[in-house]
């Protein structure tokens, strides 16, 4: 227990922004780029729902000790990707070349609970606070290796009372950090949406994760709280934890992430530092479409010539995509 507790707080030297910039400037800004010290390596994860391919990620590495943002338009497959690597869903390619490893440990066939035990803890887009339990009960559920969770020992208080006290002290500390301490004995269902997000994040931290995966942590959170949430996330990074998060708000992404991976239509289309990746043509295409700078209200667009021009362009693009796919198929 104590060993685990100390583990995530290793000094990676990445609390210094300059050091982080120096590190990320060495990464290739291409999708699936290799990293010097990846904590998570994902290979060939495909998830199909019937004929629709929701996720098709060939290769992705997540650098240890950084905040990596995963962005992409709606339906890009970000949450499905999260579910796949945390064991809440199974890739269609499972057993057929899907590999992913966390911190050197292969996770190809691991259940959601073992993934969390390995040190990769996630939160959910729709917050899963346990409403009919108190905030402190929620928190204490997060702690790992509790003796009292063993059925045989649970009846004898002596076997777990001491550990319970330690866990509660730790929970109190985290609650204080997330400004939920006054709510300690309230039911989680009485918290506001933003507070539930905080509670869920604090609960995930109770398990001393090496990497925390946040699925839209800012959705539905008011701006003031967003600021403090961002502060918390950065603090986690500065303590040596790896953060991977899904987010829609570009300001947030630019503000805190060290590295950004962009998904569109299930594929990884771009990677890069936060300030440069947004100008990547693939990203602009994914988010805004190729004709994002055309004024749709412009009557000139309605002339036959203009329409033909666009049709040609579309045909050319399609041909290009087909050629690409063919090339991939041959490879």
């Amino acid at each position: 227990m104590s060993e685990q507790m100390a583990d995530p707080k290793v000094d990676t030297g990445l609390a210094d922004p300059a050091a982080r910039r120096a590190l990320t400037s060495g990464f290739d800004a291409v999708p699936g780029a290799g990293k010097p010290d990846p904590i998570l390596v994902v290979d060939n994860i495909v998830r199909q729902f019937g004929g629709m391919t929701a996720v098709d990620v060939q290769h992705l590495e997540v650098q240890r000790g950084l905040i990596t943002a995963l962005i992409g338009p709606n339906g890009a497959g970000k949450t499905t990707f999260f579910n796949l690597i945390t064991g809440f869903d199974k890739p269609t390619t499972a057993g057929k070349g899907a590999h992913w490893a966390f911190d050197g440990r292969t996770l190809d066939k691991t259940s959601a609970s073992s993934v969390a035990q390995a040190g990769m803890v996630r939160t959910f887009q729709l917050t899963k606070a346990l409403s009919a339990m108190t905030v402190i009960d929620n928190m204490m559920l997060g702690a790992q290796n509790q003796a009292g969770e063993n059925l045989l020992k649970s009846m004898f208080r002596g076997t777990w009372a001491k550990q319970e006290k330690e866990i509660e002290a730790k929970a109190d500390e985290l609650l204080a950090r997330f400004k939920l301490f006054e709510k300690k004995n309230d039911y989680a269902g009485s918290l506001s949406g933003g507070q539930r997000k905080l509670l869920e994040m604090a609960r995930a931290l109770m398990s001393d994760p090496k990497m925390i995966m946040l699925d839209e942590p800012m959705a539905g959170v008011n701006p003031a709280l967003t600021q403090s949430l961002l502060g918390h996330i950065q603090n986690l990074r500065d303590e040596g934890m790896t953060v991977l998060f899904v987010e829609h708000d570009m300001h947030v992404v630019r503000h805190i992430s060290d590295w950004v991976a962009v998904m569109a239509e299930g594929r990884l289309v771009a990677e890069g530092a936060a300030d440069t990746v947004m100008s990547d043509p693939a990203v602009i295409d994914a988010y805004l479409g190729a004709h994002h700078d055309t004024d749709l209200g412009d009557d000139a667009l309605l002339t036959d010539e203009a329409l033909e021009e666009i049709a040609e362009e579309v045909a050319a693009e399609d041909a290009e995509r087909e050629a690409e796919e063919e090339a991939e198929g041959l490879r």
Partner: protein
Amino acid sequence: MDTIQFILNGMMREALSPQTAAVAIAVIGLNIHFGFTGLLNMGQSGFMLLGAYGFAISISNGLPMILGILFGFGAAFIFALVLGAPTLKLRGDYLAIVTISAAEIIRYVGRSALLVDFTGSAQGIPGSQYTTGFRNLSFFGTGSFTLIPFNYTDVADGAAWVRIIGWIVAIAVIVLIVMRFRSGNAFKGLLQSAGMAGLLVFGVLLLFFLFPVPYQSTGVSGWWVRFVAWGLALLCTLVVFLLVRSPWGRLLRGIREDEDAIRSLGKNVFSIKMQALIIGGLFGALGGMVYVLSSSVQPDSMGRSLTFFCYTALLLGGAATIFGPVLGSVLFFAGRIGIKYTAAAYVPDSIMSNQQTEQFSYIVVGVALMLIVIFRPQGILGNKRELRFNV
């Protein structure tokens, strides 16, 4: 006056009956399933029947009682494993479907002519074949007695006013006890606990004073069976109390709220659910064994309706509470007899015959279950706050 005394005596006898205690034990198990873990077990009677069969068949075939008990528990254990393994990974509704069918399968196999040598098919196994050993354990001696020899007839010749005052005091005591339980700190601190214990003892003594019930000391349905049955019910309540206050109990409630959240925190949800299913099933088996101690093993007496009585008792007392199952069972069975006797006494035979009062009492019970679920889903002792936020 005498009619009312008769009705209340009947309710008292039913409340005290070993079968009420047996159902209370089964409801305690169901409370672990449904109340704490959120497992929709619709086949608690199947666990009870297996416990009863394991117990009765072993003993009637000459095995010692301790082995009979172990076989009863073993059968329920395997039943829980077999039911849980395929269904606990699926959504909760599937467990309900599987358990209700499996319980019916057990009952039909029990009453089929195929196993008549063991189960006695629909006739069942008469109690005389397996209860002798249990009665021989009794240290109550022979003869019969009334629990407290001093009762209302000894005060002013049992005048009406003595009884009316007694009834009012009894109702006040019961209400007070329930209120203390609901406040949630009935047993916090030495003084509170002592006061509560005193109140409980006083309440029980008062009830025995008002409704003297004579039984044989050891006979087929005497004080010995009642003593053991209620002793076990209290023991089970204590065990559940110890279990659910622990981190394990916290996990159960967490699973009831949201399995995926618990999974994301690195807990093996399947294993915990399986443990809960087994523990609750073992309580069910114990309930089944107690159920048949004062009667016989009849498959049809432990069918679907018994499961639904269990649910009614649980919801009446309050799911996810410690004392709810016992309180609910006592109120359920006493209340049903009260309705039946009242209908028999006050409704003319031309409107409702004596036979119909029995059915009428079950109709009222059904309506009561619906009303509880609609207007008071947390039951008598339940915590409204635990239910309020379920959206």
